[in-house]
């Protein structure tokens, strides 16, 4: 069974003068799923989105959005997708409702439809009370929500979000995630770029990790975590004085043990589920009381470190330049 792909990128390449911003990026996004394009600043995420949304012409390669080729039929691509850019690109001097009407009428939507859809969208994004205020008075989170609402005025089946939660406080971020989940539940296909590993973990069905313009890994969040190496076995003892004995016992069964007295925790490389059950059994027969024993999967942070040799945050300081252009 083959599922149709709402978004396909085929060997996208983009040069800016001598700089290679994107160097052969390919991926597919099945209909109704979420792809997280993960990478540090300057990795080529924004440039990839700009090519897929027909804002920038690729130097090489091509792509399709809802079956329309980005080079051969950019107009059809624009009719099929919505884009929310990195900065909230709402017009500050217009009210929320006027922003929706402007974009709606540029789409060529019927004025009565725009009024109805605006009411629904404002309601859905908790902006009903703010709809007639200028966007200048909105908070960061409200602007982002309005920006997203504006992208949805023509109900596009495909939505591109470039770092949708950058600069938002944690609460607004979680609220926006909920809205995005709803959209996907309704059948929208989503491509979102992010430098937050947690965000990709929370929202994405599939993740494509890009660094320096190329895809360095892809898979489900779980696959990526598995790929980055073994999970860790974590044992937490109840009484601090047991920590020493527990460490001795554990050393007989594993290669190395890391002790964290503050957390009363012992960490060791895990060798699978049966191995863990066996160790749990040994502790059960001993006098040592445990608070917890379990396998801890690596976080996407660990994945990123494993794949690129640097942490996602470290890369922020690096080449921030071309992502902005």
């Amino acid at each position, binding site marked *: 069974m083959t599922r149709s792909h709402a978004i396909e990128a085929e060997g996208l390449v983009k040069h800016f003068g001598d700089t290679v911003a994107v160097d052969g990026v390919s991926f597919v996004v099945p209909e109704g799923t979420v792809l997280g394009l993960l990478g540090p600043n300057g990795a080529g995420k924004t440039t990839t989105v700009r090519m897929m949304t027909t804002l920038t012409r690729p130097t090489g390669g091509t792509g399709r959005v809802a079956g329309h080729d980005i080079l051969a039929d950019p107009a059809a691509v624009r009719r099929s997708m919505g884009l929310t850019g990195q900065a909230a*690109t709402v017009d500050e001097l217009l009210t929320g409702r006027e922003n929706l009407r*402007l974009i709606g009428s540029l789409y060529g939507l019927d004025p009565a439809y725009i009024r109805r859809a605006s009411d629904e969208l404002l309601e859905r994004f908790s902006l009903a009370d703010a709809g007639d205020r200028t966007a200048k008075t909105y908070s960061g989170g409200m602007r982002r929500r309005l920006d997203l609402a504006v992208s949805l005025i023509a109900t596009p089946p495909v939505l591109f979000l470039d770092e949708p939660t950058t600069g938002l406080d944690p609460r607004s971020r979680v609220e926006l995630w909920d809205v995005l989940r709803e959209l996907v539940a309704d059948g929208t296909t989503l491509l979102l770029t992010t430098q937050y590993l947690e965000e990709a973990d929370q929202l994405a069905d599939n993740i494509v990790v890009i660094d320096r313009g190329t895809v360095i890994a892809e898979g489900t969040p779980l696959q990526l975590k598995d790929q980055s190496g073994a999970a860790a076995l974590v044992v937490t003892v109840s009484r601090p004085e047991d920590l020493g004995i527990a460490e001795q016992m554990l050393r007989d069964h594993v290669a190395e043990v890391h002790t964290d007295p503050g957390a009363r925790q012992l960490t060791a490389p895990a060798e699978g589920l049966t191995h863990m059950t066996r160790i749990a059994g040994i502790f059960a027969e001993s006098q040592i009381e445990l608070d917890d024993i379990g396998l801890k999967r690596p976080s996407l942070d660990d994945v990123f470190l494993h794949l690129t040799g640097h942490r996602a945050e470290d890369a922020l300081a690096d080449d921030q330049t071309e992502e902005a252009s």
Partner: protein
Amino acid sequence: MNDQTGTTTRRSQISRPDIRQTGLLTQSFAIARRNFIHIKRMPEMLMDVTIQPVMFVLLFAFVFGSSIAIPIDGGYKAFLLAGIMAQTVAFSSFIVAVGLTADLEKGIVDRMRSLPINPAAVLVGRSFSSVAHSSIGLVVMSLTGLTIGWGIHTDVFRAALGYLLLVGWAFAMIWVGIWVGSAMRSVEAVNGVMFATMFPITFLANTFAPTDSMPDWLRTVAEWNPISALTQAVRELWGNDMPLHADAELPLRYPVVFTIGWIIVITAVVAPLAIRTFRSRTAD
């Protein structure tokens, strides 16, 4: 214009509204309407075509008016008005450049370009609102002029042609604005460039004083300055002109022809540059 070529995507299970293919004009009006809302929300945006020129008219008329004797009906004040109007329409490039740079900076242009519209609508819409903006200025200045002794002493046809040349000039200057606006990275840079160029250009002319008493070399420069042809043309068409110097340069002898010529030349030279700069700014 509303043909049903834009169809909804059959592949999706989401029910979508009808997307009608609209024309460039409809799209440009939608964008111009947004710019008018800006003016409504921030009326101080109109200062450059209202308070500022009116202040110039009053300052120049009352400060220099008594020391510059102009042998026409209404004296220096009547002479001055066409000059201030020419300066104001030349400054319309300023309005376009500032607005465009702000939209580019904030990503508004990108948002528009991601929509199924003609990319030119962004520029055409901005031009519409800019010409309307300048026209408001012309009305305000005419009314101010009437109160201080300026008037049109010719016929309706000539009067209209004078206004038409001013608006035509504003159109040509839109391209200058698009060019500068696309090339500059910030509104502050636009302000700097425009002040540094537009002020000398609009002053080094016959706008505020006759060129007769200038040193020879300066007089030649001033009389070949395109703004001088425009100012002279409007003065002649409205009957506010004074007799020309015996060896006045060609543009002042045939000001209407030269003004139309300048409008065509400026547009022909700057428009391709402006479009190229705008494209390379937005497409990469």
